[in-house]
């Protein structure tokens, strides 16, 4: 069977000593930054990207992926133990998880989170293995017009799923597309928006923007409200869920996994949205809905399964289509390009070891997390008690050195400072930076596909509606956009985000 052959290839790639080691490093670092509030996977992956230059591409990707899904585990550990969600995706876990901890069931809540995450991770590994080959088959049929429309759909979806104002999401996307165009135009060789600076001839590196907006911008914002973190740590007694607990967690885990996988594939979706959606779904369908917010085990199991599923499912569009669905995936694409691999449907056929090695490593990484996490809880708890005013200069140092090492130029450091200021401004104005990062990555690609599509159709814009794939994608985009704009649905969406 093809699937088994693929997975066997993946195992032989992922289970080498080097790759296992870096997988472990990745999930360990990921958990650590997941524990620390104020340091997210985007900034961490951006910081470590330059360090991975010396590694094999597959090893680098395995480690970076580990950071991403490891962060989901770490975030929930602190959410449960001290009511401090380390990541935005574990905000809802804190609602019931912390209540469980206060009732002396901290160990069970942690175990539930770990089991739910592991199950979702395993299911998603299989989902990727099953869904990726047919998807890239389809993607190979895509012409330039279809790709353009697919990116339009991606951007529209990220608008629809963004939590803030639609107008601002749209504005940020277009701003990102424009920023992505900085640098030499590949077709004419003309430097655009470069202000005659030779340092801008190759454009602004994605990592510089990401570190500025997410790293520096967040530090500045965090410095503003430094509330004391009083840690009311609860003792962990029993880890083993009771029979009743098992019975109550199975259905929520299954529903959370399904919902998380579905939302994770969508651009702009991913871990945070998945966990929020899973929690509100569970609250509606559960027989124990009265217990929600008071320590219901379903309120931990469902969002934890969903955020891990969402995190992993977001690899599907990245690996098969070369299209990032969130900023972390955009960084992954950046990593592929830096290692000389053009992301897209051909990765699977041309680099099967890389593709399947990465997929299998996710399952191995999830296993590491399950085994490692519970014994290391003491370490994580000690880590959160590091005060922020001692932590943030260190983050800043790693950002600065990391950005410098990209091209060994201090101009990247200056640009990072500039984007840090912009990032803080955006935050103050409620303009979400994530859609901008998507636009930034897609900008040059969209222009190129638009150019090619129009070249082939001799300037006839109808090509986007006469090709069936492209037309279908555009119709879906239009429907999604209209649906959000309709007042009735709009109110629903706002309600969903308020929960």
């Amino acid at each position, binding site marked *: 069977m093809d699937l088994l052959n693929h997975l066997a290839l993946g195992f032989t790639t992922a289970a080498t000593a080097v790759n296992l080691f870096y997988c472990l490093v990745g999930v360990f670092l990921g958990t650590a930054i997941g524990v620390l509030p104020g340091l997210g996977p985007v900034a961490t992956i951006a910081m470590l990207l330059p360090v991975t230059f010396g590694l094999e591409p597959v090893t680098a990707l395995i480690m970076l992926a580990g950071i991403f899904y490891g962060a989901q585990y770490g975030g929930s550990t602190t959410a449960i133990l001290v009511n401090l969600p380390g990541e935005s995706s574990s905000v809802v876990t804190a609602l019931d998880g912390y209540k469980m901890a206060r009732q002396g069931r901290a160990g069970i809540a942690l175990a539930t989170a770990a089991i739910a995450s592991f199950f979702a991770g395993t299911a998603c590994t299989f989902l990727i293995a099953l869904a990726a080959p047919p998807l890239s088959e389809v993607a190979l049929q895509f012409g330039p017009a279809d790709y353009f429309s697919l990116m339009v759909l991606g951007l529209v979806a990220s608008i629809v799923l963004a939590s803030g104002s639609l107008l601002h999401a749209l504005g940020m996307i277009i701003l990102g597309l424009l920023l992505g165009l900085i640098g030499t135009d590949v077709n004419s060789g003309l430097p655009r928006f470069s202000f005659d600076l030779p340092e801008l001839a190759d454009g602004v590196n994605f990592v510089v923007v990401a570190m500025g907006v997410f790293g520096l911008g967040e530090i500045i914002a965090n410095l503003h409200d430094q509330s004391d973190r009083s840690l009311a740590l609860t003792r962990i007694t029993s880890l083993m869920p009771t029979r009743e607990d098992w019975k109550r967690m199975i259905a929520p885990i299954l529903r959370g996994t399904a919902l998380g996988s579905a939302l994770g594939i969508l651009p702009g979706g991913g871990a945070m949205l998945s966990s929020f959606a899973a929690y509100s779904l569970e609250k509606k369908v559960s027989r124990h809905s009265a217990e929600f917010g008071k320590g219901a085990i379903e309120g931990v199991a469902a969002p934890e399964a969903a955020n891990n599923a969402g995190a992993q499912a977001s690899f599907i569009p990245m690996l098969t289509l070369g299209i990032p669905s969130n900023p972390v995936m955009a960084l992954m694409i950046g990593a592929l390009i830096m290692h000389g691999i053009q992301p897209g449907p051909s990765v699977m056929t041309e680099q099967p070891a890389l593709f399947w090695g990465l997929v299998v490593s996710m399952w191995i990484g999830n296993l590491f997390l399950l085994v490692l996490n519970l014994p290391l809880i003491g370490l994580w708890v000690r880590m959160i008690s590091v005060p922020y005013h001692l932590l943030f*200069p260190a983050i800043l140092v790693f950002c600065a050195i990391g950005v410098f090492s990209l091209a060994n130029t201090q101009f990247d450091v200056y640009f990072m400072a500039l984007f840090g200021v912009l990032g803080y401004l955006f935050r*103050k104005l409620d303009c979400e930076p994530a859609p901008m990062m998507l636009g930034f990555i897609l900008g040059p690609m969209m222009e190129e596909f638009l150019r090619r599509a129009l070249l082939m159709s001799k300037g006839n814009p109808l090509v986007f509606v006469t090709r069936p794939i492209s037309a279908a994608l555009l119709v879906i985009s239009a429907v999604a956009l209209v649906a959000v704009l309709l007042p009735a649905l709009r109110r629903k969406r706002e309600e969903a985000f308020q929960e």
Partner: protein
Amino acid sequence: MAMPIRSPKDFWAGLLYAGFGSAAILLARDYGWGSSSRMGPGYFPTVLGSLLLLIGVASFVRAFVARGEPIGGIAWKGLILVTAGTLLFGFLLRPAGLVPALVALILVSAAASVKFRFDWKAMGLMLVLVAFCALVFVKGLGLPVQLLGSWFRA
């Protein structure tokens, strides 16, 4: 009668979008429009710039119509010190070397926090961090910078 701004966030975001959009259109003027079948380098930027300008205007208009939250205080101290520290790091790295650049970055940015005290513990931690970076990035990963730059050599 002056119209009151009812949503300051929309107001400033609108100005920001409109500013970036107009700048893009102005700069792209000289890039060559081309034709639809052969898009010039100015085609896509002009289209995007116009869209952004429109969105900016829409956000600007909304600022006077819909009610929004106030922006809240700007963390000037953090904004200025973190930015200044980062710029200083970039400026010092080549001529002064990694160690002075790191010390400058850490001291300037740490001053942004109200809780930070320049006591022995903080200084010790700073030295550990600087030593770690020197060992890992310069000795270990071969980052091409000097620990002490030309300023410190006669």
